[in-house]
């Protein structure tokens, strides 16, 4: 399990958006995975651990709901912005801005993007971790990427005079 600690912490950090909580939750998940290793039926150990991390984080998010949802990016308010590969490259080179945009996505979209782009998971692994049918992974990623583009575009417009 230990080799996958970075993956566990990274997913927890992006799901709960707090360093301290992510550490606690990643640690809880590692222990849980270790304890229930008997329940592991072979296959992809990382995906199995990440599934536990995800469920642990969602339970925590559920228990603090009401405060956090409000901070998520609202498509209706910000509206859709036209983005180009060039403007994205510029927006994306600003780490803070990119992190803010990613953190602003709804958790279900944020997680597929983090799993795909940061963890390099396959569609099959994403389906397993996120508990969604493999057939919906592609459309979730499509929506997540669109929303992130819009968020980056919206920030750009906000900054322009």
């Amino acid at each position, binding site marked *: *399990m*230990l080799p996958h*600690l*970075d993956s*566990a*912490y*990274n997913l927890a*950090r*992006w799901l709960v958006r*707090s*360093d*301290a909580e*992510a*550490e*606690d939750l*990643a*640690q*809880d998940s*590692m*222990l849980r995975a*270790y*304890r229930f290793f008997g329940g592991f039926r072979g296959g992809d150990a990382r995906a199995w651990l990440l599934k536990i991390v995800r469920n642990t984080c969602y339970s925590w998010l559920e228990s*603090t709901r*009401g*405060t956090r949802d409000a901070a998520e990016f609202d498509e209706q308010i910000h509206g859709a912005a036209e*983005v*180009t*590969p*060039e403007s*994205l*490259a510029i*927006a*994306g*080179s600003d*780490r803070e801005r*990119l*992190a803010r945009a*990613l953190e602003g996505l709804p958790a279900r979209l944020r997680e597929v*993007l983090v799993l*795909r*782009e*940061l963890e390099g998971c*396959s*569609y099959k692994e994403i389906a397993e971790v996120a508990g969604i049918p493999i057939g919906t992974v*592609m*459309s979730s*990623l*499509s929506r997540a*990427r669109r929303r*992130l*583009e819009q968020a980056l575009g919206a920030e750009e417009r906000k900054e322009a005079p």
Partner: protein
Amino acid sequence: MSCNQASWLHGYFDGELDAARAAEFEAHLGGCADCTRDLATQEALRKALGTPELYARARASLRSRVKAQLSAPQTAHRPGRAYWRGLAAAASLVLVLVGAWQTATWRADVADRDVAKQVLDAHLRSLQLTHLTDVASTDQHTVKPWFVGKLDFAPPVTDFAAEGFPLVGGRLDVVGGRSVAALVYNRRKHVINLFVWPSNDSDAAPRSGTHLGYAWIRWRRGGMDFWAASDVAASDLEEFARLVSRS
């Protein structure tokens, strides 16, 4: 994007289409400017998300904690978070002890920094959750009695609204494994958390510092440790500390 092949773009981009579908999409790409452009956008997005700073790596302290935990003999009860907080506090204590042969100043600095980190964590937690106050009142005569029976000491509670630091309320918090009183004050739009707990040591003059952009200040007076944390300017926090220690 209105093209009828666009729904395959992400599967193609991620290399998740079967060979026949991928070839079909590739042929389509040759004649579709929209999809070609969107594909370039996806490349840019992937490049941006691939930046290493975006990946949150586990800190060494977390790694060693988990390592110790996984190699420890299994106990009947699953240790809760309080256990690990206690262990963290114990580890901090070891850190302080290791420094014992160093100068007293250096030792105090280490201890201060460690408590400062915990105090600031508590401050940040209080802002993130809907848990800024357990008792919301600007009246010190409401806030002070609220702590009775919840703590084994009576924290001094004074409202400084006239001086520009109105009392907002109080709550229980945990710092270094012990229950402490957290008094919440406002300074303009900012929140100041004042943590108070008893101490057997003699009075100490204020010491201050910053951690992750947040300011803290601490002092000891009349058998109580005081720690204030906030994102206000350091000078504001010092003024606040003067007010509290004079009250």
